[in-house]
């Protein structure tokens, strides 16, 4: 929706990606380029492979046994499936927010400080600074600044999800992957998350999976429509919602299936 330079070099490039759970193939020849500092929405009916594709981008599929990927995923021109790839560095660079908010059963402070501590970005003062900045970025600081030592489980669902966003931001990623980050939240919290995504797009590249058509239309610059493991259409969001090229896309968007 926001017009930025179309010429910017892609930060994420998927090239002929096939993905298999055991012998079942979940993704077929996916190729797409994602430009930096944009919000890209992945939409499609349930089971079409959106989450699977998203997890390919930070190699979270690695932890599922018997999975296999062919093709290439380049991030900043680096092949992240190269055998020399450092997964720790990759996941530092590519943060992830899950569908169900999953703060650790630790204090609010320790949740946000978890990543920086793991990556030794600490030094007490620096840590405090990082935590504050991250919470501010996640639009949660004002609500929690007086209770940083409270257990994160005492926050509301919407606050927990923003805490998870703050936690992801604390390691200073370039890319933020979000898998239906608002699907378990009430409308008000959903609006807050969407506003937040709008604010974050200036500094981060965001890839968001959503089931909610309106949400995709509201928050994203580009939209990719997946169907049965295939990428059917990838266009600027405005275009896909007004003049889809493919019949299947149109059927899905107008609610004829899915």
């Amino acid at each position, binding site marked *: 929706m926001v017009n930025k330079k179309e010429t910017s070099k892609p930060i994420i490039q998927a090239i002929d990606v096939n993905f298999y759970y055991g012998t079942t193939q979940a993704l077929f020849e996916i190729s797409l380029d994602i430009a930096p500092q944009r919000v890209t929405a992945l939409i499609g009916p349930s089971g079409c492979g959106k989450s699977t594709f998203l997890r390919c981008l930070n190699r979270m599929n690695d932890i599922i046994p018997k999975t296999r990927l062919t093709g290439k995923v380049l991030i900043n021109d680096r092949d992240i499936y190269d055998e020399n790839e450092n997964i*720790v560095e990759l996941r530092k660079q590519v*943060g992830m927010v899950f569908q169900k908010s999953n703060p*650790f059963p630790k204090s609010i402070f320790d949740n946000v400080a978890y990543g920086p501590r*793991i990556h030794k970005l600490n030094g007490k003062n620096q840590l405090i600074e990082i935590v504050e900045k991250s919470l501010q970025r996640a639009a949660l600081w004002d609500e929690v600044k007086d209770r940083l030592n409270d*257990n994160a489980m005492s926050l509301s669902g919407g606050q927990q999800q923003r805490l998870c966003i703050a936690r*992801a931001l604390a*390691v200073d990623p370039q890319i933020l992957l979000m898998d239906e980050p608002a699907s378990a939240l009430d409308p008000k919290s959903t609006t807050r998350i969407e506003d937040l995504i709008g604010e974050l797009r200036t500094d981060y590249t965001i890839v968001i999976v959503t089931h909610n058509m309106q949400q995709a239309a509201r928050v994203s610059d580009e939209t990719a429509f997946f169907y049965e493991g295939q990428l059917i259409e990838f266009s600027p969001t405005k275009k896909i919602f007004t003049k889809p090229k493919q019949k299947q896309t149109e059927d899905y968007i107008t609610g004829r299936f899915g």
Partner: protein
Amino acid sequence: MRMDKFMRLLLISTASISILIVALIFLFLGKEAFPFALEPGLGKLFDSRWVPVSFQEERYGIYPLVAGSSLVTLLAMLISIPLSIIGAIYISEVAQSIEREILKPFIEILASIPSVVLGFFGLVVLAPLVKNIFGLSSGLNALTAALLLALMALPTIITISEDALASVPQSFKQASLALGASELQTIFKVTVPAALPGIIAAIMLGIGRVIGETMAVLMVSGNSAIISFYPLDSIRTMTATIAAEMGEVPFGSHHYQALFWIGIVLLFATFVLNILSRLVLKKYGMAQ
């Protein structure tokens, strides 16, 4: 509504019965033990010798027995806690499912072996082993007893800790991995802390089993009531003393009453342990 009231009544009465039983245990222990406080006096218990049958002067000092129990318990926990927690982490977080299916039944079998039978194992296998390794004249000592007790506490601590670890939601681990943490960092910074209340409960139950265990220690500890904190000395525990002497003691004698005092001390020790574990749980904010 009626059903509600009925259920309430039922629950209240069951709860009260268990409280009543505990109270009765205290009462009867107290009743049998009390006369000792008048004659020969409680001071007799705070003594360094336990010689309840003697032609000269009977001594009822429980220090050596308390020392024996403490030494054996401490040693057993020192051996058992690290081993079983590492074991639990391995089974729950690292092992392949085949390994898990082989390991778990073995641990359950270990838990179900009667302690007398383990005592035989202690006598026939552990004691000679300890004897040879340290070049002693007898292998019946605190270390052997502790090894045996550690073996008994192992399945309890492993099983319960493993349950606690396995019930840590997958989503916590995913969050940690997605932040760039390694598997090992995830285990020690997320999974274990999240499972800590369960692990502490497991340790407490393990200690309970070790303190209360009687037969096996009776068989391999050497049974000399001396005050010692040296693992290779033969010692005697409170439980073993009660078990060994209760059968032969004249009813109502001072010796008989002194044995009841040992029972009270044991009860008190487990009570303190219980309170301590609650405090620990509270500190981690997990107490119900």
